[in-house]
């Protein structure tokens, strides 16, 4: 066996890395159906990723692509939501429709993929929300900024340097703050998905953290544009929770009520406990 053949091979499928394997493992995996000839692979020295089916060493070994191979035997399923088929304006709106109106089918067809597509979708979905937030707070401060800031400054609740800052500068600061929040979206959604995945662990989820992240990202982001619209948020908020529960239930093959306990009941209990503790402390300090 040559030196090249002994080097480990990196394998990826649907925008997700499957791991690092030896040539023997891949050969056996191709025969057993663990790997597909369409899976992308790379080894040190290669310029780019190439489908396993095009690798000379696996073609030469006459690896049978048998009918038992789940990847080649099955007709390709159209990935859902639409954003998974590529980013475009039409797919953006179709994704919102997929998640909101057809969550069961959407999350059944959600492929095992990477983080990139849900992150870009989250960005595009939160952009209108951030712009709307800036507009609302900008308008509020433009119209009555002085009235809002004057009592705060008089009460000494503002940091010293803000006492000398004009209302316009405060509006700019709010814009900068919202912009920074926008930059932190990937981090906050990853941490949120990690907590959700932790709460699902007692039920034995079938998917990985990556799947939790993908499902929660799509289910949350699809409703972002509506959450900030007055009145509509009363409908969009609960609907979002339903979509999240359905999404996680389908992706991890867990009964919906178990997901509900992990994603709604436990966090709500924790929040109530936190609020109760906070009020108890405040009441104690007032006495």
């Amino acid at each position: 066996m040559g030196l090249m053949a002994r080097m480990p091979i990196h394998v990826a499928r649907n925008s997700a890395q499957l791991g690092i394997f030896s040539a023997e493992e891949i050969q056996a995996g191709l025969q057993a159906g663990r790997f597909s000839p369409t899976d992308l692979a790379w080894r040190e020295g290669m310029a780019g990723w190439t489908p396993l089916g095009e690798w000379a060493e696996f073609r030469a070994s006459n690896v049978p692509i048998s009918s038992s191979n789940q990847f080649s035997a099955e007709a390709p399923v159209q990935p859902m939501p639409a954003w998974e088929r590529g980013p475009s304006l039409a797919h953006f709106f179709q994704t919102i429709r997929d998640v909101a109106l057809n969550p069961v089918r959407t999350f059944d067809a959600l492929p095992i993929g990477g983080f990139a597509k849900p992150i870009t979708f989250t960005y595009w979905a939160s952009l209108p929300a951030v712009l709307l937030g800036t507009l609302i707070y900008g308008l509020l401060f433009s119209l009555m900024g002085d009235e809002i800031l004057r009592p705060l400054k008089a009460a000494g609740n503002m940091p010293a340097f803000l006492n000398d800052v004009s209302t316009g500068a405060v509006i700019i600061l709010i814009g900068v703050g919202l912009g920074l929040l926008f930059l932190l979206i990937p981090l906050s959604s990853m941490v949120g998905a990690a907590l959700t995945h932790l709460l699902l662990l007692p039920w034995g989820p079938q998917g990985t953290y990556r799947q939790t992240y993908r499902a929660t990202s799509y289910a949350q982001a699809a409703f972002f544009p509506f959450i900030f619209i007055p009145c509509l948020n009363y409908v969009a908020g609960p609907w979002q929770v339903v979509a999240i529960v359905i999404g996680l239930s389908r992706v991890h093959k867990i009964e919906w009520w178990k997901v509900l306990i992990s994603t709604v009941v436990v966090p709500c209990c924790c929040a109530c406990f936190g609020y109760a503790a906070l009020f108890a402390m405040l009441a104690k300090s007032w006495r």
Partner: protein
Amino acid sequence: MFSFVRRPAYPGELNHELVWPLAFLGGSAFAAIWFQIGLKLPDCIFFKFTGLPCLGCGGTRCARHLESLDFSQAFLFHPGFFLIMVVGGAWTLYSAVFWLRRDTLRLRPAWSGADSLRLRWVVAVLLLVHWAWQCYYLTR
């Protein structure tokens, strides 16, 4: 064995050279503005009830010392947060070099399945040691 490998990105791979530096710089700027404005974080409920610090306790004090470039105090208050900042800074620096050189090969950690299990144990033990340190240092 755990190692680093330089390889091209596969189609659809998260752009780690873009996302994490942006998150690091955005988070740092956010924290700096937060400290300048003088805003405070709520007290830790876990600490209030148990008298023991949680895993995040000391993080803000670490960040405040980092802001004033007092590295030794920053490390003592929260070694984990300090290390995350060091790694974040190093990754941002590497990413800047990556973009400036218009490189196509990306630095990625590589480990086998067995190493993955070992790494989880190491992380669990490190978290425990870290918490023990916090219990000692933050309750002196």
